[in-house]
């Protein structure tokens, strides 16, 4: 039984790391624009499918991955320019519908490009499982965890140590005030969308060898990432990471100990419970309403 628990934990942390990356993308965009980007999951899907397609054209894996990330970043920038900038300041529901529309466009385009088939990427460094105190660990899981940890540290350093990161944070606190002190808010907005699309693509490429990717793979991943961001307190980057890991572990435990069919219900029940007791997430600050 302890080995089994350890196995669930290993699986959960791996999946949770991916949720964390997606949630981090949500937090970045939310910070810059107050918009929850429901197309975030589609960035993950695009990263995975693009990398698989590019690998198929004969590129080496690192090159294919890099190109896939760059193309996804361009898609993110395009989305910001075409759909978000013209609708800045629109009510929350309007922006939700716009990003849901964008998600449908990306999913529809992926359907036309790659059909409904499932695709997969070869593992980065073989499939020989490692033994970890009785639990098996795929080498790909190590890649997922390592790259996620590195990216989280980089994002953290970016916000805490660079002028650019602080400028981005300033936009999230008060856009008008940020503009008054000379921050180019539009550039910051593009930066956030580019970064977050890139994070999504990385997450997609990292899990492509573990799960099957198809045109609609982004839907559930996007929802889980959104849940991670909400559980952590939206707009709180580290909160999203903690939220993602918690969600992944709970889901794996639920699937293993209770029922795999109910695993999504268990994950969302957890999110509801968190919100019932902490209406602004685990790390979110309560906000005052201005009348």
């Amino acid at each position, binding site marked *: 039984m302890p080995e089994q628990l350890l196995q669930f934990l290993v699986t959960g942390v791996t999946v949770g790391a991916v949720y964390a990356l997606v949630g981090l993308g949500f937090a970045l965009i*939310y910070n810059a624009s107050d918009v*929850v980007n429901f197309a975030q999951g589609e960035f993950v899907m695009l990263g995975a499918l693009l990398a698989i397609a590019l690998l198929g054209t004969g590129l080496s894996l690192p090159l294919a991955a890099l190109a896939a990330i760059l193309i996804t970043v361009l898609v993110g920038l395009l989305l910001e320019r075409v*759909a978000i900038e*013209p*609708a800045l300041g*629109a*009510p*929350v*529901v*309007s922006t*939700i*519908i*716009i990003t*849901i*529309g*964008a*998600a*449908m*466009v*990306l*999913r*529809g*385009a992926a*359907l*036309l490009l790659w059909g409904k088939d499932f695709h997969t990427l070869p593992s980065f460094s073989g499939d020989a499982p490692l033994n970890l105190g009785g639990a098996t660990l795929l080498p790909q899981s190590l890649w997922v965890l390592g790259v996620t940890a590195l990216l989280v540290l980089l994002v953290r350093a970016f916000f805490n140590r660079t002028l650019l990161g602080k400028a981005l944070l300033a936009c999230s606190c008060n856009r008008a005030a940020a503009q008054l002190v000379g921050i180019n808010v539009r550039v910051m907005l593009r930066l956030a969308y580019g970064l977050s699309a890139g994070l999504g693509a990385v997450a997609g490429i990292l899990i492509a060898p573990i799960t099957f990717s198809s045109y609609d793979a982004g*839907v559930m991943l996007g*929802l889980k990432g*959104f*849940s991670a961001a*909400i559980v952590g307190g*939206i707009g709180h980057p580290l909160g999203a990471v903690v939220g993602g890991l918690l969600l992944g572990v709970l889901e794996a435990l639920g699937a293993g100990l209770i*029922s795999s*069919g*109910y695993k*999504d*219900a268990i994950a*969302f*029940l957890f*999110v*509801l419970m968190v*919100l*019932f007791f902490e*209406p*602004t*997430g685990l790390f979110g600050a309560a906000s005052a*309403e201005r*009348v």
Partner: protein
Amino acid sequence: MAGFYLFAAAVLLLPWLGIDPYFITVVGVAAGLHIILAVGLNLLMGYAGQISLGHAAFFAIGAYASAILTTRYAWPGLLALAAGLVLAGSIAWLLARPILRLHGHYLAMATLGFGVIAHVIMVQASGWTGGPDGLGGIPPLNLFGWVVDSDTRWYAVMAAATLLALWLSLNIIDSRIGRALRAVRGSEFAAQIMGIDTARAKTQVFVVSALFAAFAGSLFAHQQSFVSPDSFNLAISVELVTMVVIGGMASTFGAAFGAIALTLLREGLVVFEDYEMLIHGALLMVVMIILPQGLFVGIGQGLRRVLALVLSRQP
């Protein structure tokens, strides 16, 4: 109420206009169902300012209550419908306080989570719901001896149900509760200070909109004589929100207009097959970017502006 009589006249005249019967009996019935759902959701979203991304769950509760009670326990249709209403209303009432305490994206997340959980239960609890394959053989609705078993009769029933929903919505908005809700949307805090029990007002409207959805669900189950989880997934919840927003929030006829527009859109896009999703998404984005206040409200304002311009030009 002028709009209501105009709409009622249109509904009555439609079958006699010589349009392809398919559009009246199939598309018309689907549109009616969507109008009931959208008008109910609009009470919550448009008037009380609370978003719900899980409304398909209440639609499902009505549908499955009718499906299970009539097929497995041989309940009469109307009694099953009433049971569905009671169940949906009770669940909404229980959920309302903890859920509606949340704001903005947290509320969106919680309602979305509720919808996903309901969908998972529909798929997994196959002993009750038939699982992913659904539940068939639902008998036609029997209204005091009058059996609704033809497309024409369904059009009549759906027309009456739609008009009832519109009439209820218009009256609720015009009542004391409706005014309280609009105050909540303006500013919850200010409404509280004016002495409005905002938690109570939000709970009431949440229950009412759940009742609208469950009512539509029961009709849907009998009309299709088959229900499956696919009719109640997240995409459907999103589509309902889209109807309200595309039509124009805080307008009963806007919501009805959005419901009709999206029903026709879905019907029209079928011919594009694989391009359907792409075009559907692009249209949503374009409408929301150009007319953030929605088609019905936006076009209405535009026409008024043009009219004012034309009138002011005259000497």
